[in-house]
Each structure stands twice: as C-alpha cells, then as structure tokens.
C-alpha cells in the first residue's frame, strides 16, 4: 500500500529508457542526422537558436533531435548548456547595413536604395499541400542573381531619420558593457537593452499574441514595416591581445525596423517613432512581433496612456520566457499532497462547522 511513493529510482530509470526508445522510433527507419535537421528543418533550428540565446546550428539541431521536435524543450536544452559556457566578452555591435541580404523588403516605400529583394518567403505561396514531397520530389536548384557583397545596404530607417521624420535610436552606451539578463536578475523599470534582450529570448507565440492584441486596439500604435531584412552579417570582436576588432564569424539574422505613429507637441515637430526586432536566422514573425512589442512597451516613455497588457512592462517581461513558463506550469505534475492534505483538513473543518450550524438551525425551527 505504500508503493505509491516508493520505487522512484527504478521508475525514473525505466522512464528514461522508454523516452530514448520512443525518440528513436522504429529501428527500420533511418535515423535523422543533425545535418538533415539543420538543413531541412532550418527554421526550427533558427527558432531554437534565437530563444535559446545561442548561435550554434549543430547544437540547436542536436537539441531538436533529443527533444523529439518539441521546440520549447529544445530551447531549454540549449539554454541549460549555454549557461555553463565561459563568457569572453561582448562583440562589437552588429552593423546590419553591411548585411549580405538574401531578402529585404520595405512596406513604406515602393522602391528603396538597394532595391526590394523578395528572397525565399512563404508570403506568396498558396498554402496547398505539395504532394510531390511525399515521394521525395527532388527540386532543381533555384537560379540566383549575383549578389554584390561589397555594396552597403542603407537602412530605410536611416534615410527617414536624416530628414528628421523618424526619431533616431537612443544613443548607445559606448564603453559600458550591456547588462546581460542571463547573468543578472531582471530589474524594473528595464533599460532598453534589457527589454530587447528579454524580447529576443521571449516566446514567439507569446509575443505574437500580444503584438496582435495591439493591432486589435489594445494599445494600438499604427505600425508600418519600415524594413525587414534577412541575411549574413559579420561579427567583430576586440581581443585584448590585439587591441583592434577582428571578424570572428558571420551569422544569419533577421532584422525588423517598425515605423510607428508619430508623436509631437506644440514645440516638438511631429516625428515617427520606431520599434526594433532582431532574431537569429530567418524568423520574420518573431522579429516583427518583437518590434511591435518594443514599441508598445515604450508607452510610458512616450507619455502614452498605458492601459493594455502589451504596454505593461512588468506583465510582458516577467512572462515572456517560455522555459520559465513551461517549467512552472508543468511543475503542477509534481506531488502536492502535503499542501492538498492541509486543504482537505481545513475544508473538512469548515464543512463540519456549516453542517453543525444547519443542524442547529433545523432543530431550532422544529422546536418553534
């Protein structure tokens, strides 16, 4: 009768074996390779790298494989590994105007310097299942135009900014290292770097739903896509030994510059405001949701009426992390029988008191 809580050790061991077995599936099927996941499920890899805060395609692919395709679980795996890595320092800020863009669109201007580049996008696909993929339908390699990697691609925001139509981004704290939210606890009100880090790691679904809520009137700020670009940018790092920046890597990022409703007053000429989003790999939905949320969370700074959930900094930043949320929601599976026993005891006592009162009342009534 006491077995309910005994034997945890063996049960866990068997559960782990079973899980590993289910992950592998029928042995007659070939096992997925990390390269296959990296190359053919590349957008899943991108999401895991972004929310896992670790740019490593192989490790992200491994996490996805180990997590059986559960991306939140994969993000958790990658984060738990990342946290053990030593930190060498901060890279130089990415210069996305040096991006070799594979895709770049603006919805605010018909044409922009550097041109609109549609690139690979689901946007204009008809969502019809392609049954030829069942039979491993091979595709011919897509033709590509030559890309001038040396050409700088000015940001649409910069062009608007020169005219004074768009607010400049807040000045960077040069010299001071940015606060790292994976090393220090969140403090409120949060600085812009902290907010952007939090949103970049934040759950795509959570940010998507909240940013959607702003479009439906819960804190609307009339957004336009100033620009979305996706491509490779160099990462530079100043090593102590050399004293100057060297390129250490090239990473794929998606950047979204959102142009929002103008602010101004009697004395300050009206100006468009901006929201910013950046994600590893190709992740436009995430970058856009992040940009909308960045702008929504500036409500207080811009003296707007902050009445909607999406504008509530503490609400958004404290609940955006899916590893935290997933853990805490699922911890309800752990035994709670001590607390429940306490509740049972008190509810029984309270019920007994009510029943006693009712009995007395009934007796009094009968006596009358």
């Amino acid at each position, binding site marked *: 009768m*006491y077995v309910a809580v005994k034997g*945890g050790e063996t049960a866990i061991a068997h559960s782990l074996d079973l899980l590993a077995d289910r992950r592998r599936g029928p042995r007659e099927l070939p096992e997925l390779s990390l390269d296959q996941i990296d190359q053919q499920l590349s957008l899943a890899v991108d999401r895991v790298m972004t929310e896992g805060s670790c740019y490593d395609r192989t490790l992200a692919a491994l996490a996805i494989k180990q997590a059986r395709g559960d991306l939140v679980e994969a993000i958790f795996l990658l984060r738990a590994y990342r946290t053990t890595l030593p930190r060498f320092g901060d890279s130089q800020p990415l210069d996305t105007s040096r991006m070799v863009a594979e895709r770049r669109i603006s919805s605010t201007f018909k044409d922009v310097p550097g041109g609109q580049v549609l690139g690979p996008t689901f946007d204009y696909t008809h969502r019809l299942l392609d049954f030829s993929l069942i039979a491993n339908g091979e595709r011919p390699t897509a033709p590509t135009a030559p890309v001038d990697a040396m050409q700088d691609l000015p940001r649409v925001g910069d062009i608007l900014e020169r005219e004074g139509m768009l607010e400049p981004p807040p000045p960077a704290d040069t010299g001071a290292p940015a606060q790292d939210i994976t090393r220090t606890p*969140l403090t409120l009100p949060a600085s812009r770097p902290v907010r952007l880090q939090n949103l970049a790691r934040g759950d795509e679904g959570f940010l998507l739903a909240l940013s959607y809520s702003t479009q439906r009137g819960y804190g609307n700020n009339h957004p336009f896509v100033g620009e979305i670009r996706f491509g490779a940018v160099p990462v530079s790092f100043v090593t102590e030994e050399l004293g100057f920046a060297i390129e250490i890597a090239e990473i794929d990022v998606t950047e979204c510059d959102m142009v929002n409703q103008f602010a101004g007053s009697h004395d300050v000429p009206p100006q468009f405001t901006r929201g910013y989003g950046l994600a590893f790999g190709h992740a436009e939905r995430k970058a856009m949701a992040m940009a909308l949320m960045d702008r929504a969370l500036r409500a207080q700074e811009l003296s707007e009426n902050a009445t909607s959930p999406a504008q509530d900094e503490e609400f958004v930043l404290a609940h955006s992390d899916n590893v*935290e949320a997933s853990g805490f929601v699922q911890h309800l599976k752990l035994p709670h029988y001590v607390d429940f026993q*306490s509740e049972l005891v008190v509810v029984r006592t*309270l019920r007994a008191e009510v029943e006693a009162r009712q009995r007395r009342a009934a007796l009094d009534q009968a006596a009358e």
Partner: protein
Amino acid sequence: MPDTNYEDGAYNYAYLDEQTKRMIRRAILKAVAVPGYQVPFGGREMPLPYGWGTGGIQVTAAIIGRDDTLKVIDQGADDTTNAVSIRRFFARVADVATTTRTEDATVIQTRHRVPETPLKEGQILVFQVPIPEPLRMLEPRETETRTLHALSEYGVMQVSLYESIARHGRIAKTYNYPVLVNGRYMMSPSPIPKFDNPKLDRNPALQLYGAGREKRIYAVPPYTPVKSLDFDDHPFEIETWTECCALCGSRESFLDEMIVDDSGTRRFICSDTDYCQERQEERQGK
C-alpha cells in the same frame, strides 16, 4: 579551485562554475545578514526545469562540498520522484554522500516540508521556493511589493487574513502561511503546511530559501524568531488529525491521507518517511 568529476568531465564540480557559486554565496551572505529579505541574484538555467527546485539546487550547489552529506525530500519523503532526481543529480555532479536520515545530513534540500526530527546546529535546510514574494497574490507587481517591504507596510496581508475570518470564521490559509522574520520582514515560508511553521521559529539550523525562476534568495539564520501572522482573538493554530499514523502510530507528525480501496477507505501515514521509518524500527526493537 576548479575541479571536475569523472563522469561528466565537461562540467565543474557541483555543476555551477566557480564564478557563479561565488555570486550565489554573496547573495546568501547578504540574505543571512538581513533575515527574511529577498536578495535578487543572477539565477542560472539549470538542467532541471524551472518550478522543480532550481532555486534550491543552485543554493545547494553553491554551499555543498565533498565532506557534506546530503538529504533531499519532497513532501517529506526521500523517495518521491523529484527528490530522487535531485539527489541523483548531486550524487553525479558533486560526488557527495547522500542519506535519508535527517540526523546524519549536513545539508537537507526540501520541497513543501520541514523534517519532523528536530534539526541541530550546523545543519542547513535548503527550501525550494516557487513564489518568494508573500504579497504576490495580493499585489502582483514587484515594483509595488518592494516598496511595501521597504516601508514594512503589511496591512494588506492582515486584511486578507481578516477577510478569511469574516468569510469562514477562521483563517483558512493552510500552506505557505505568511510569517514575520525577526520582527521586520514578512516572508513566504515556501508552500510548507502551516503545521511546519512553528519549526521555523528559533531553529538551531540555518534556513536558506532559493527561488530560481524568480531569482531570489532569502534566509533565516539560526535561532531567529519567526512569527506566524495572526490576531489576538484568532491565534495561529496548526492542523490536527483524529487519526494516528497507520505504520508508526505517531500522533505528533503531519499525516498524509491515502485512499486504499474503491469504496474510498482512507489510511493516514506520516508524510516524513525517515521519521516514520525510525519510529517503526524503534517499535520493532522493543
């Protein structure tokens, strides 16, 4: 000094790197210096999920050494799955001796219970804390609650207890029952049943509380007064049972209820498995 163990050579001793341990130890020292005050710390992602004891695990990892003997309990029991999992984690990464005997342990990590066996000087009790802020369910904003603590403005909790009396005729809060530490800070004792609250008061052992997801550490140093909130006309009281433990016959311990057949027959058993076991052995010895 960095020091790796054999099985998982890729990780530092007790999983966390030494810098992180130092950061956590600093937070612990501050917490001990200001009993009941929630010290923010740079909580790390642990290889166990948030909400499953990551705060307690980080505290334990920061204080444990090879000479320690670790006991891990969940709901009072050493062999519940999560307790087993955490104990296995430390046996693996910290190469530490483990025990189920409260008396033999130097560090006891717990979820939802304080052992029945009285603790001694030199022992450390590490609590896993889900929500460190006692006022959270009354005031969801951290910015507000920090101010309330700074001003010792705890009226909102007294009002909530009063409302419970008005509605039910008694304080119906049963676990995570708020306490005042050293007459200054209101503290969540973590979701232990209020049955365990009196054990926190002037306990000879050091109590450390770790909340991983919320990134807070707080502490109750040995022999610190811990008072459960109440009213003069509604004094604090703990759960009682009319039954005794079906295994050891205890009438003093916290009892778990079990449904043993389809018709709903119940039996009551000590929630503290070590305490129950010791008592059974004593009885058999007689």
